[in-house]
Structure formats: structure tokens, C-alpha cells
């Protein structure tokens, strides 16, 4: 296990990786990238569908869609995709509450679907999301947008849009705070005693 040098806050504290301003700029940059990548060819006629993975992926998807709408004039439809029932680690954890799944009324068939999550870690959440999507329809293509990629993948999964790459140690935890849920925007790096809490 690698042990990378930690930030100024030291092992017991936490370091702010992105401030509220950074988060806003990062989302704006990702919006431009989405427009660029999906504006070519057949995608240009139908905008992509942004599906956030609860809990923090959902407001992120909405913000990303707002920005895309602002820059391109067309706000893509958004939704939420709860993947709890598809997780392969359910047995190892206490029962989780289910969160909302909300797909656009037109469905996802033949659309480009962009999954949006806050942190990409092991890749198991995204694997579960791919399984869940298959039960909801057949998208033409599935892409992945994450605010933070912290590494440590356990599956061959890669994001198409990454807000910030944050190489971490497994003993560190990455927390994404969003105003909609946490009252403020920030990305924090924490030193944790046990296995990190993020499961993305």
C-alpha cells in the first residue's frame, strides 16, 4: 500500500482539495467537455441523459446539466439511478436505505447516458450502475463523469470526464461536500484509521 505525503493539515486532520470556487469551475469545465464530446455525429440531435448516482451524484448531475444548458442552450434531461439493489457487497454491510431512482419520461433507450458520481474509487458502484441501467433500457452508449477520481480501481472501469484526479492512499478518505446536502461545497482529503468509507 502506498503512503503518499499528506497535506499541511497532517495525518489527524483534513486537507481541502477543492474549495467552493474550485468545485464550480470544475463543473463548468466538465460541462464544456461533455458538450465537446457529445456534439459530434448522431449525438448532436438528441442531448445526452445525465443520471446521478445518489446521494451526491444526483445534485452534481443537475448542476452539470444546468451548466451544459447555459453553454449550449439545451439543458439535457437528468435523473437519478439508485444502485443499492445491484451492489455486490450488500451482504457485507448493514442494510442500506434505498434512494430514489428517477428516469426521464422518455426513458434511456438509444440515448447517450452519462452516469454522474462524486468519487470514483473501486469501480464497484459503477459496475452496479451498469447492471441497473440494463434493467431500465438499452442506452446507445454509457459514459461516466466523476468529480474526483481517487484511484484504487478493482474493476476495469475508467471515467470519461474527471473533475480532479486525486492520487490517494487507501487509508485516506475523500469527502465531497455539496451545498444541496451538506450546506457548502468542498472536497476534503482525510486520514482515516480503518478502511475508507467511499465505495464508488
Amino acid at each position, binding site marked *: 500500500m502506498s503512503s503518499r505525503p499528506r497535506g499541511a493539515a497532517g495525518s489527524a486532520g483534513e486537507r481541502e482539495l477543492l474549495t467552493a470556487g474550485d468545485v464550480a469551475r470544475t463543473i463548468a469545465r466538465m460541462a464544456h467537455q461533455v458538450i465537446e464530446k457529445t456534439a459530434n455525429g448522431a449525438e448532436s440531435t438528441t442531448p445526452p441523459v445525465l443520471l446521478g448516482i445518489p446521494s451526491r451524484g444526483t445534485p452534481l448531475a443537475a448542476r452539470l446539466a444546468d451548466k451544459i444548458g447555459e453553454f449550449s442552450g439545451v439543458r439535457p434531461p437528468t435523473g437519478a439511478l439508485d444502485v443499492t439493489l445491484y451492489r455486490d457487497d450488500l451482504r457485507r454491510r448493514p*442494510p442500506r436505505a434505498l434512494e430514489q431512482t428517477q428516469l426521464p419520461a422518455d426513458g434511456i433507450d438509444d440515448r447517450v447516458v452519462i452516469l454522474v458520481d462524486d468519487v470514483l474509487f473501486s469501480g464497484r458502484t459503477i459496475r452496479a450502475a451498469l447492471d441497473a441501467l440494463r434493467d431500465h433500457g438499452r442506452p446507445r452508449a454509457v459514459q461516466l463523469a466523476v468529480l474526483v477520481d481517487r484511484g484504487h480501481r478493482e474493476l476495469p472501469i475508467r471515467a470519461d470526464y474527471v473533475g480532479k484526479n486525486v492520487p490517494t492512499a487507501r487509508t485516506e478518505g475523500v469527502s465531497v461536500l455539496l451545498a444541496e446536502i451538506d450546506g457548502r461545497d468542498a472536497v476534503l482529503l482525510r486520514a482515516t484509521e480503518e478502511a475508507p468509507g467511499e465505495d464508488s
Partner: protein
Amino acid sequence: MKHLLATDGLDPALATAVLDTADELKHTLLGREVKKLPTLRGRTVITLFYENSTRTRVSFEIAGKWMSADVINVSASSSSVNKGESLRDTALTLAAAGADCVIVRHPASGAAQRLSEWLAEPGTSVVNAGDGTHEHPTQALLDAATLRERLGSLKDRRIAIVGDVLHSRVARSNIHLLAALGAEVVLVAPPTLLPYGVESLPVTVSHDLDAELPAVDAVMMLRVQAERMHGGFFPSAREYSIAYGLSERRQKLLPDHAVVLHPGPMLRGMEIASAVADSPASAITEQVRNGVHVRMAVLYHLLASEGATA
């Protein structure tokens, strides 16, 4: 949650979590072509029914199958129970064969509780699908889910439970759950069909249905359980119907928003008029539909996680 045996003593937070899960499951499966979730793949669920039942057994079977569990139905009439095998031996056999969960219906009150003690060692979960006149917790949960859907919340809602409360496990489970979720419960029944110790229950009691109806948000009709009645609890079916049946005239006394429930099977014309059972106020088919989602939620909370305790 390891077992679901009763609503008496069920933590309101856990009950609410089950209802919320059922809500989300219903929402998730709505309009889907493939109603199948991989959540309980590799888990084995056995329904062990010592009494006849269509809706409860089928509801559990569908719930298990939609969650990808392997569901096996055992009915007492077609098993070694016929040869005199005891409940304990039957249950231990099923657990030894690999059942993760046994869903039991039994004519004896307390059977599910005993089963959970015998199966504590193999670690098999037990769900009470109705034991004698004691409890039927999943029915109460599906009733609560239906009421929440129609009324928004159960807090401070007034619910009348009408009819044969004495023999009704549905009534008993509902009394505890509805009270735990913040509703006021009024029992409306002839004195002969009220249980002993009714004064210790969190309810008020009335014998006058007409007087109660204008003030309730929901009325839950009960089945008259002829098979459990050994004696004259009321003079005649006609007289019962006149005093405690939900007729069209009585339905007009209800507030506009009031919901009519019945756990089924219904005795149309005696407990409830056909026109009332089929009216927009009636949520009887919704109860059945919600039953599947509630039972999926129960199986999820029991079986999805091995780390679950108590």
C-alpha cells in the same frame, strides 16, 4: 433485523425504513418490462404454510422471485407433516437443506416465535405470515403502506378497525403498528368480538359504527372468521351485517378523503357492500399490490445483508 415475528414491539424507525424501502421498490419497478432485481440472488426462501392462503403465499413468492431469491413452497397438506412430522422437525429439515428464510403460516398463536428459537442455531430468518389469532405483521405493514400512500402520513390520523377483532391477527398487528406510527386507532366491534385485555391496547373502543364513521380517515373492515368461531358470537350473519357491515348508506357518512381497506378474502354483502368494495374510496386491490413491495422490502431487510443483527 433477523426475524419479523410481530409488530408489537417493532421499532417504529425500522417499520418506517421498511415502508420507505417498499415505496422505493414500487417506484423502481414501475413500468419496467423486467421486474427482476439481482439483490437476493443465491438466497433460498421457503414458504411453509399450515393453513390455506392464496394472496399471502403468492405475494411472498412473487416478492422473493422479483428479488431473484429461490423460492420453494411447502404446504402442510402435501408434505411430511401429513405423516405426523412436528413443526420443529420440519423446520430443522428445511434449514438443514439450506433455507435462508422460512416464511411460516400456522394455526397456532406463537408458532413463528417458537420456530425462530429453534432456527436460531442454523441462523435461518423467520417471517410470521400469520400465526393463529396472534399477529400477521406483513399484512399490517402493507396496510400502513397503502394508508401512507393515500393519506400522506399516519401521524394523528384516525383509523377505525371494524368487525371480528377477537379472532383477527390482522387487527392485532395493525393496532400495534398504526399506534407506533402515530395514528389513533378505534376498534368498532360487538362486545363478544373484542379480545380480553382490550383496555391495555393503545386504542379506544366503540360499538356504534355510524357514530364513528364521520370522524375517521380510514376504515379497515375485518373478515368474520367463521373457522375460528366455536360458539355464538353474534345472533346471525344478517344482524352482524346490519350492525357492522359497511353498506353504501354508511359509506356516505365517511369524509370524502376516507379510505376503505379490507385484508381479504371479503364476504361481499355481509362485511362490505359490493358497491363500497369497488368504489374509488376502496384501496383493496392496492393493498394486494403493495403487499408484494412490502414483502420485498421485508426480505431485503432480513436477507440482503449478512451483517444484520437482531
